[in-house]
């Protein structure tokens, strides 16, 4: 899926041509322009009129396209897939389909995203609807887009395993008219809408745009501390002494840790003290119920769910030395 040409060159070309894309598509391809002149006159005492032959010009199909990245602030890419949005506008004057190419290896990238799929907004609601919107197979063009019509395109990517939190990347979507592209003025004889020719317009009939994403990853550090309280007011680990374990989960990074659990086993030779499980100083019941934690003679399990970077969670429980 990597294009062979230099990305920087293409981006500069797009900027140069942008002003030319501002005008609307104009008269529809296949329209007949017909001109007839009429003259009136007097000759002697009579007046008359005469009509010229009618000259007819058929308007050919102009091949033009505009592509824009709609993801204006870099998309945050974590463990799940990221949806990048682009708009594709047929700035020509006839219905046209476009071939799409995704380039994930844009110059300057700190990582290259992994392409998952290219999807068109079949139901036109500007939202990616998995299972509803059509996934384009490799090499499959978009459906035909009417002159002046736009189609939203979703490019689904994921982070490579090598990405580091905070790194940025760009993904380029290129669209090329199926009929053809090239230097403005290039003619594809007989291939225009309405029986005429197709002519490449100022956009060269191929354009591209970039969307940006940023790796938003999280790392989790877990520390465990134990405090012993013996029956005599001391800190000796003797039978009957109570050990309080403190498990501290520190999530760092700009992303989040998904579905984070803190689990521990009750050490051999000790017995869990019923009803001593806490999360951030709040008591949790031992049962497997609606609160985040559960505990048994075998061990504890606290479900922290999705935890954002910069958050610290503290779990404590107590055991008695047999």
């Amino acid at each position, binding site marked *: 899926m990597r294009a062979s040409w230099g990305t920087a060159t293409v981006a500069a070309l797009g900027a140069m041509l942008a002003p030319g894309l501002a005008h609307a*598509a*104009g008269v529809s391809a296949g*329209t007949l322009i017909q001109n007839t002149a009429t003259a009136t*006159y007097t000759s002697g005492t009579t007046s008359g009129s005469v009509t*010229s*032959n009618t000259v007819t010009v058929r308007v050919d199909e102009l091949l033009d396209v505009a592509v824009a990245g709609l993801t204006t602030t870099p998309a945050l890419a974590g463990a799940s897939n990221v949806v990048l949005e682009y708009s594709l506008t047929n700035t020509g004057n006839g219905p046209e389909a476009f071939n799409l190419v995704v380039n994930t290896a844009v110059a300057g990238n700190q990582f290259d995203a992994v392409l998952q799929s290219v999807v068109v907004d079949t139901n036109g609601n500007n939202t990616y609807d998995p299972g509803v919107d059509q996934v384009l197979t490799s090499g499959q063009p978009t459906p035909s887009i009417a002159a002046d019509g736009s189609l939203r395109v979703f490019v689904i990517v994921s982070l490579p395993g090598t990405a580091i939190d905070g790194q940025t990347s760009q993904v380029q979507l290129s669209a090329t008219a199926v009929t053809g592209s090239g230097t403005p003025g290039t003619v594809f004889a007989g291939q225009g809408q309405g029986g005429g020719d197709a002519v490449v317009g100022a956009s060269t009939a191929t354009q591209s745009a970039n969307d940006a994403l940023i790796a938003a990853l999280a790392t989790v550090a877990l520390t465990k501390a134990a405090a012993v309280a013996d029956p005599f007011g001391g800190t000796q680990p003797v039978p009957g002494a109570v050990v309080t374990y403190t498990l501290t989960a520190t999530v760092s990074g700009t992303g989040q840790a998904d579905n984070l659990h803190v689990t521990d086993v009750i050490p051999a030779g000790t017995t869990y003290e019923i009803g001593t499980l806490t999360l951030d100083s709040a008591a949790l019941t031992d049962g497997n119920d609606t609160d985040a934690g559960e505990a048994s003679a075998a061990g504890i399990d606290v479900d922290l769910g999705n935890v954002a970077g910069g958050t610290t969670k503290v779990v404590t429980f107590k055991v008695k030395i047999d």
Partner: protein
Amino acid sequence: MNKLLIAAVSGLLASMAAPAVSAQAAQPVELKGDVKVVKVVVENGQEKRVLIDPKVVVPGDKLIFSTAYRNTGVEAVKDFVVTNPIPAGVALAPQGADKLEVSVDGGKTWGRLAALKVNNAAGPRAAEAGDVTHVRWVLPMLAPGASGTLTYNALVR
């Protein structure tokens, strides 16, 4: 008797109608329309404008519509007025528009573009080349054998 008379009258009408048609064909003036497209070609690194037959025409292209006239009769023709509605799909080109007599209201009123106004929701505004609906040329007299060509420039919308 009455039936015969009617038959004779209708026969007379038919014979009168026939010469009228042939008089139409033998008009003292002929008009011949043509169109060319202006293309810029690069020759030896120099841009050059050429007029070619409009084989390939796309929005934004410049067309030159021409009407050639000739007095083919033996008498002078007076009050010769050639009227040309601007076809749908093109607009009168701003370049050269000020030299033409134009109408922006379907041929009801005429004048130079700069003197004409069009009404829109916000009130009257100065007419632009794109508002022009008709162009016309008025020639007071065509001598026998006189000929010429009338042209206007248009842009494909």
